[in-house]
């Protein structure tokens, strides 16, 4: 028989549940308990587009090293969903563990020889202790948590403290939950031995926070001075608008009158959402919408208007699996091209590419400065993985001396002093004109905003030369954007190498681990994390300095690679596609295997990782 895996603070646990069964809160407690023991953890919810009855998974990466991406593979499967039993059991790594509800006997053929099977009669224990159906449903999850607490060596008082916090507003629930926890714990203690996978108190979490990217981006919007949010519900972006609402309620009311310093409208659709955002931006308020790929498709016409009429606006695009309705509850980075070149005619837009909740906050705030400075649409490209999963990140920071940058807004004083106002006039070569807000001055500075061609003084014109001048200025403005967006981050390999890798967004944590793994194997690759479009010059310098550059992405068509080739005139043969697009977040094992293979190293694990 295979030796059972033995690991301390370094393994992967996966819960297979049925959605709507109340498992989410127990899973959350499990993760928080590990964090409270000072052990770094990353958790990913894999769920269907459904409310009740379909399979969901919750995958937890426990990492003493602090790796927060998906590793790949499963060491302990908590298999609580008969519908997915076979594939769940098949997914366990050799030497791993299967935890299941042993109330009903299972035939031996349903197990595997090379894993350790641990049965706890959860339903029987629960039914013996509770009569009401509602309690039976919920408490079974807590009994399960109790058993795992014993099996994995989680400190019991940590879980109890978390239960007390969880039910602080309903104190009557606390003893009942603690009782259920003990039922599971005691049963496991009396009948089973601890697993080879063990948790030991550590000090690896520090002052880091556990937060999802949608919440972080929403908080960023609050700090970035956004006052108008218009949105339409769509997975996986909905919780961004909800978090913005929540934070505004706490942080944005006039202390004297109690009135709101913000306006949030749930619009009738995505078109109206972006219309309101453009209207508010035109009138000088910082405004945003949050959506996903299908929403961006609907917004195309307004995005072009924002580009051409030069109206600041921000879209948070929490990407999901496309095309069409695609895989609405799975993750992808597949809106890169449709956002970068959104709308008809010649257009290009600024994209910010956060790597996780930390940058969701930072870019969520700075997107509004950039939009105002550049007077254009700015996309913040999240994805479901970072948007809806809580990640362990450095605490948010804010410098109180930071001011909101409203860009070139011409005031009544400037107009009064005789400034020559031309709404689309490039006054200093950066391609960015001055704008006036409605009602700035009784007789000066008014202009008629439109999506049609016009001269520098906003007068309608269909003259070819006038049109071309304006389009060229918009390109100059885009060049200015190149100097204002966040620079890419370079990580050099230990030794000089002709290999490079470019990546972005939520690939970051898995890439961290993959790079360390490659380094440990003596494979040298320089890494560049791209953080924005238009690409700053360093991106093309990086490509020029390497013979072969892997471009790691989570979409089928290598969209960032296409953008690099298109914008930088790069020889496609030098950019190697590394693509994970099955809807699950990319894993460190997959990246490491693909890069090793690309660098000529033999790697047995390369095949089939994505398919898992």
């Amino acid at each position, binding site marked *: 028989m295979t030796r059972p895996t033995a690991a301390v603070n370094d393994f992967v646990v996966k819960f297979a549940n049925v959605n709507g069964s109340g498992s989410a809160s127990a899973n959350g407690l499990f993760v928080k308990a590990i964090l409270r023991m000072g052990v770094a953890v990353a958790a990913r919810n894999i769920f269907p587009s459904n409310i009740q009855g379909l399979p969901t998974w919750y995958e937890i990466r426990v990492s003493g090293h602090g790796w927060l991406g998906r590793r790949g593979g499963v060491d302990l499967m908590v298999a609580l969903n008969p519908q997915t039993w076979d594939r769940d059991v098949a997914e366990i790594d050799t030497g791993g563990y299967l935890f299941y509800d042993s109330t009903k006997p299972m035939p031996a053929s349903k197990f595997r020889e090379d894993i350790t099977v641990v049965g706890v009669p959860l339903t029987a224990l629960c039914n013996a202790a509770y009569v009401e159906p509602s309690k039976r449903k919920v408490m079974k999850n807590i009994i399960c948590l109790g058993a795992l607490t014993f099996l994995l060596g989680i400190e019991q008082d940590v879980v109890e403290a978390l239960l007390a916090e969880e039910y602080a507003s309903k104190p009557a629930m606390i003893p009942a939950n603690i009782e259920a926890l003990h039922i599971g714990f005691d049963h496991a203690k009396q009948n089973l031995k601890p697993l080879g996978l063990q948790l030991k108190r550590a000090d690896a979490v520090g*002052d*880091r*926070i*556990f937060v999802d990217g949608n919440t972080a981006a929403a908080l960023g919007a*609050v*700090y970035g*001075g956004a*006052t*108008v949010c*218009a949105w339409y519900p769509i997975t996986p972006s909905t919780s961004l608008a909800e978090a913005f609402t929540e934070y505004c309620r706490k*942080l944005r009311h*006039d202390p004297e*009158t*109690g*009135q*709101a*310093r*913000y*306006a949030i*409208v749930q619009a*009738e*659709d995505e*078109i*109206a*959402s972006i*219309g*309101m*955002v*453009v*209207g*508010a*931006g*035109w*009138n*000088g*308020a910082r*405004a945003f919408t949050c959506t996903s790929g299908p929403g961006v498709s609907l917004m195309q*016409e*307004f995005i072009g*208007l924002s580009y051409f009429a030069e109206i600041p606006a921000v879209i948070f695009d929490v990407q999901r699996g496309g095309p069409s309705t695609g895989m609405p509850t799975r993750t992808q980075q597949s809106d890169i091209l449709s956002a970068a070149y959104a709308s008809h005619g010649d257009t290009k837009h600024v994209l910010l590419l956060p790597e996780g909740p930390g940058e969701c906050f930072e870019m969520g705030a700075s997107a509004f400065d950039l939009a105002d400075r550049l007077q254009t649409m700015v996309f913040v490209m999240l994805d479901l993985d970072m948007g809806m999963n809580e990640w362990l990140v450095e605490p*948010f*920071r*804010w*410098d*109180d001396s*930071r*001011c*909101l940058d409203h860009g070139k807004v011409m005031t009544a004083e400037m107009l009064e002093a005789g400034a020559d106002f031309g709404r689309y006039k490039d006054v200093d070569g950066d391609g960015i004109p001055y704008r006036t*807000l*409605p*009602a*700035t*001055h*009784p*007789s000066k500075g*008014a202009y*008629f*905003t439109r*999506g049609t061609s016009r001269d520098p003084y906003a007068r*309608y014109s269909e003259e070819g030369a006038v049109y071309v001048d304006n389009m060229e200025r918009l390109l100059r403005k885009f060049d200015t954007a190149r100097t204002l967006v966040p620079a890419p981050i370079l990580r050099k390999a230990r030794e000089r190498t002709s290999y490079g890798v470019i990546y972005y967004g939520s690939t970051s944590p898995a890439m961290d681990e993959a790079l360390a793994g490659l380094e440990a194997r003596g494979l040298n690759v320089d890494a560049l994390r791209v953080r924005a479009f238009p690409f700053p010059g360093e991106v093309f310098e990086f490509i020029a300095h390497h013979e072969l550059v892997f471009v790691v992405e989570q979409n089928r068509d290598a969209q960032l690679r296409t953008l690099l080739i298109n914008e930088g005139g790069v020889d496609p043969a030098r950019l190697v596609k590394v693509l994970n697009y099955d809807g699950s977040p990319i894993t460190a094992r997959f990246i490491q295997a693909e890069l090793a293979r690309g660098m000529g190293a033999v790697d047995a694990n390369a095949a089939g990782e994505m398919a898992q």
Partner: protein
Amino acid sequence: MTYIVKPQFHHPSLPTNKLGFTRRDYEGRVSTLCAGCGHDSISAAIVQACFEIDLEPHRLAKLSGIGCSSKTPDYFLSASHGFNTVHGRMPSVLTGANLANRELIYLGVSGDGDSASIGLGQFAHAMRRGVNMAYIVENNGVYGLTKGQFSATADKGSKSKKGAVNSDSGIDLVAMALQLGATFVGRSFSGDKDQLVPLIKAALTHKGAAFIDVLSPCVAFNNHKGSTKSFDWVREHNEAVNRLDVILGRAPVTAAYPPGSLVEVAQHDGSVLMLRKVARDYDATDRVKAMAYLHEREAVGEIVTGLLYVEAESEDLHDALATVAKPLNALSDAELVPGAAALDRINAALR
């Protein structure tokens, strides 16, 4: 003659309003619409209305969609910021603009193609949200810029210039606005300035969603026999329910009207709407009766005009959202950014 720049000078004896502006100060560029277009009469009525209510021209924001009607904001109020948005989407842009600065007056100008076809959804939702605006549809039942296709407000059975008969039911935006909760609903005719100017004045001073459907015959494509949006047809079938005067500053003028024929509606801004009844038993403050009356008259082929419904104690979207009195676009960094100390507390709650 549309290539001619409109001269700025005017006769020194032109009357001025309380702010010292003449009517000319409310004008815009020379219209590029067809000679005789009903829309130009509506632009003139808007100019007259703004002049008469002593509006500071720059305190108004004019927004439109796409189409002949949506071009007109260039032809009035040159000192106002204007925004010619995208087809059918003016309501959302206006909503956003209004959220950003509640202190301005918002005038939305649209057409029947813009509001009843591609923009029907946005029209409906702006009405039900109670966005504080005057929303004018210049309704000619036809697509002019693309040369004569039926619009969704064309009546069933009406004939196009080329002789095609419209087989689809017409959308009545007035009926929709009433149903959707607009707090001011009127209808008028571009050829009836006496009726239209006071309606626009009242809509501009109304708090909440104010809608006016203005029948505006298209001289190029929809002014022929068989059309129900032609000058002749509208004149023959127009059934006014009331005549309106808008009194600013609550001047006591009731004495000028015979008793029993007058309804007085005081609006939020202090203006008073004096409704001289024309149709007996018409109550412009009763939404349900207004809807019933509208359908009743429509059934006998009449186009009901006048102030059809007004809610004096109306509320707008800002009331619903309980926003601060100060425009959101004027809030300072200190009022918007919670700061590092608040962020530390948030961080602590996420551990």
